[in-house]
């Protein structure tokens, strides 16, 4: 009897844990969704801020985030893929490669502000790119690189060796076997990992704060050397630095909602693709 009661209480505790987590998430989404939803409109998404940013929209921030994420992708995606291919397919599995792999994986745990520091000194100062889309994008690219390498490696590892061996046995060279028998199957996994990494980068504030994000710009950036507005930085500014924070609180909510939706959509796409893949594999 005692066993049954303890089990009941125990599992009840576990259920409570689950409900707490779900409740918190729902609370977040509801708060931002309801207060942000009131503000979102086509004008909000397509116009620039006006009147000292107390009115108008957040289009420059959306565009800025979009542009800087493209630069991030240009640095992190190909380099990530190729490094993963080399590490997993070509490099001899020695102690050195294990150490390298370990280091890369642990670099993804380094605080984003430290990448920001690095970005300031390398891109803004030493390489003289100044505060710009380029500097911020490269900094975010470095932040995302460990992630893309690891995600690509996971995808490659999931392909059984028999695929590679089959091709090699038929006389293919190593690259040919990779190209025809490994990559096509690993690519969906790789790309979904990349998209997840990029969605993280899009939401980062600390690396772009000192490398290019701006409080307010009257025009859209016209080149890679310009500063830019960005969604996460805009939210930070609206919530803490703006001169009339209570007045623009609704706009801050709107910004938060747009940022969340952007990331949710990217994550959802990945989840759906992965789910489809798993079902195919099961059959």
């Amino acid at each position, binding site marked *: 009897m005692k066993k049954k009661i303890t089990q009941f209480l*125990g599992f009840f505790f576990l259920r409570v844990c689950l409900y707490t987590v779900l409740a918190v998430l729902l609370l977040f989404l509801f708060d931002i969704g309801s207060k942000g939803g009131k503000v979102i409109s086509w004008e909000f998404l397509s116009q620039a801020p006006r009147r000292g940013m107390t009115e108008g929209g957040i289009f420059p921030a959306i565009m800025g985030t979009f542009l800087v994420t493209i630069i991030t992708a240009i640095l992190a995606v190909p380099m990530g893929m190729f490094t993963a291919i080399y590490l997993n397919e070509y490099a001899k599995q020695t102690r050195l490669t294990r150490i390298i792999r370990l280091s890369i994986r642990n670099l993804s745990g380094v605080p984003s502000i430290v990448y920001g520091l690095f970005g300031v000194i390398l891109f803004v100062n030493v390489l003289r790119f100044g505060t710009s889309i380029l500097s911020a994008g490269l900094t975010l690219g470095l932040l995302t690189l460990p992630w893309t390498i690891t995600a690509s490696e996971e995808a490659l590892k999931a392909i059984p060796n028999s695929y590679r061996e089959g091709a090699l046995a038929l006389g293919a060279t190593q690259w040919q076997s990779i190209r025809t028998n490994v990559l096509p199957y690993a690519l969906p996994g790789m790309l979904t990992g990349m998209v997840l990494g990029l969605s993280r980068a899009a939401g980062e504030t600390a690396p772009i704060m000192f490398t290019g994000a701006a409080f307010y710009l009257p025009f859209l950036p016209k080149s890679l050397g310009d500063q830019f507005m960005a969604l996460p930085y805009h939210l930070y500014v609206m919530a803490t630095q703006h001169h009339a924070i209570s007045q623009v609180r609704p706009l801050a909510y709107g910004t938060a909602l747009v940022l969340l939706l952007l990331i949710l959509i990217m994550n959802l796409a990945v989840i759906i693709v992965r789910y489809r893949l798993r079902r195919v594999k099961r059959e």
Partner: protein
Amino acid sequence: MKRTSWIKLKESAIRAFLFTNGILAVVILVGIFFFLLYTSIPAFREVNIKEFFLSKNWDPTSPVKAEFGILSMVVSTLMVTLGALAIAVPIGIGVASYLSDVAHWRVREVVKPIVEVLAGIPSVVVGFLGIVLFGPAIAEVFGLSNGLNAINGSILLAIMAMPTIISISEDSLNAVPRAYSEASLALGASRWQTLIRVKIPAALSGIIAAVMLGMGRAIGETMTVLMATGNAPAFPKSFLSSIRTMTATIAIELGEVPYYTTHYYALFAIGLVLFVITFVVNLISDIILHKYQEREL
């Protein structure tokens, strides 16, 4: 014959390209550490190392005497991290246990993506919610005048660290061989007793690794603590005081510091300390996971 030598050439070229690419990536990433080190060293020409690590006062712009002690901010970071773990570990392991042992597979399919979504919420949004949602609530509950303090930070960081703890703990629990649970059940133990006395101990190293990874995440968080903990540089008196973490200090002062001054170098020194702490925590967790996986196989 010509065709094969052309193919061989292509092969070598591709291999060389991939190798260069890989080396470049590794060099850049390792370079971050050396760059930080190189830029921190000038700070110690002017700042005594003992003072740096042991003094409670960080006041680089003081008109009286510029001080560069990081003890208060290190303690603040640790406080808020431990507070976060105190919340996230029980709940996280609880959810992981539920998902691996009690939940119907359909529930799992739904909850797992939800947990991933929680992981994707950007830190600035969490910080924002700390200001508008949790701050006033905390102020009410504790009868405080203001909700920007260490507890607020701990709750928010717990929310950020939980998805990591949940997913890795759940993976570890699932990896426990069925034979263990079946043996336990066969001997008459209830599912709960099996979970508590057999599965969790068996998965312990994986769970510890998960907790350490979560801890690393909490230590390195910047925006969340910057927005919600009040940023008072004093040595923390309690969980209800306003505190300022290492990450927040860098974020606050990096913008105002003229390049190549002692203050500038000192900020990089803090960055170096952060880098080392998070890297080591992640490394230990990784080694534990690795050892654990090897053992199970």
